[in-house]
């Protein structure tokens, strides 16, 4: 139990350090870094590696944005089993919908209430 937290901290922190190095050393914009992470997550999941990382690190792997690539691919593959090629398009947002929907909803509500402070 305690170790779950420790590994989540270490793995999650390490993923952020990779991002920081991409920002500082390679002078990428945040948008480039995040896009790369999502693609990396999908590629790792293509080799079934991301699930292993999640088993090991829990939230340390599900909270970084790379897990978005993983859930996109997972949803797509689940539907592909039932519906073939068409299923990929049907399922792609299936598992990630909670994240996207809540980001849109909360973003919208916050924008209704708060003014930017500058």
């Amino acid at each position, binding site marked *: 139990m305690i170790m779950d937290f420790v590994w989540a901290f270490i793995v999650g922190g390490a993923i952020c350090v990779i991002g920081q190095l991409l920002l500082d050393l390679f002078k990428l914009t945040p948008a480039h870094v995040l896009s790369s992470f999502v693609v990396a997550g999908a590629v790792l999941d293509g080799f079934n590696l991301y699930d292993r990382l999640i088993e090991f690190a829990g939230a340390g792997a599900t909270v970084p944005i790379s897990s978005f690539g993983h859930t996109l691919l997972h949803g797509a593959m689940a539907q592909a089993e039932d519906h073939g090629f068409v299923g990929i398009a049907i399922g792609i947002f299936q598992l990630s919908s909670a994240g996207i929907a809540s980001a849109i909803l909360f973003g919208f509500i916050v924008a209704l209430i708060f003014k930017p402070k*500058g």
Partner: protein
Amino acid sequence: MKQGKQTWVFDNGVYIKGSATVTGPREKQGPLGQTYDYSFEDLYCGEDTWERAEQALLNKSIDLCLQKAKVRKDAVDLLVSGDLLNQNVTSNYVARDFPSSFLCVFGACSTSMEALAIASSQVDSGNSDVALASTSSHYSTAERQFRYPTEYGGQKPDTQTSTVTGAGAALVQKERSFVQVEAATIGKVVDFSANDPLDMGSAMAPAAADTIVQHLKDMNRQPEEYDMILTGDLSSVGTPIAKKLTYQFGYDIENVHRDCGLMVYNSNQNVFAGGSGCAVSAVVSYGHIMQQLRSGELNKVLIVATGALLSPTIVQQKETIPCIAHGVVLKRVSGS
């Protein structure tokens, strides 16, 4: 009258009758906080949107300038103004309520001196009797247009500058007064292939050096003949580069150089490399420098406002950043 290659000397006598500066709250806390005529207590300046806040800054600076110069609005023949926003909206919308001819100028952060040079030349030539030069910038409108939303959590590098929230205005006319606009050196566009929009000091340093050197050549002067050579917003990154570049041309400005961007904020105000924006040279020159010229602490100052002429769209298309700098000489007139 033209002197040398790029310098206009105003032989007929052009004088600054009055000037005014207005800032936001953060500038008020800076080292020059006491020199501003008015500082708004919040960034919105009592308006709904950032854009209208910037208009409020510019309006206020023009009103205060006219008040201090004791000139009525309709006595002004020409308004020369510019800012950072697309289509120069701040100046255009402020000019909507201004009953005089209007010339809109864009020189990015060099706009303050570009406007003053044009206004002075119009007065010198007799095309206008009374002309007003003004400019403005606002932290949040600039962030929104050139960078990210203000609440976005991206990390800013140490080379980045912070746009000054403020506006400045100066009224020029022929009637003798305590500060004379002696000459102006109009810069050319210089591009040394710098392409980092988050490091504008490096991009602008060659333009600043080019204009300073050209000015000294045209006027056949040495840096020591000025009490101060003031650049706009080279910041802590561009300042040493500009000094080095002018030194390479045989002019050592080390002892007389100051940078407005390094004067407006305290080092603990989290502004990274310093202040920037159209307003930075305006609020320093039209406040602090004018006061020192009046009191006699300064006699002759060359103000070189520097501008990075970048557009986020073109920079994303991998273009480099062209830059420009315009210099204006302000001189104390004794016995007036």
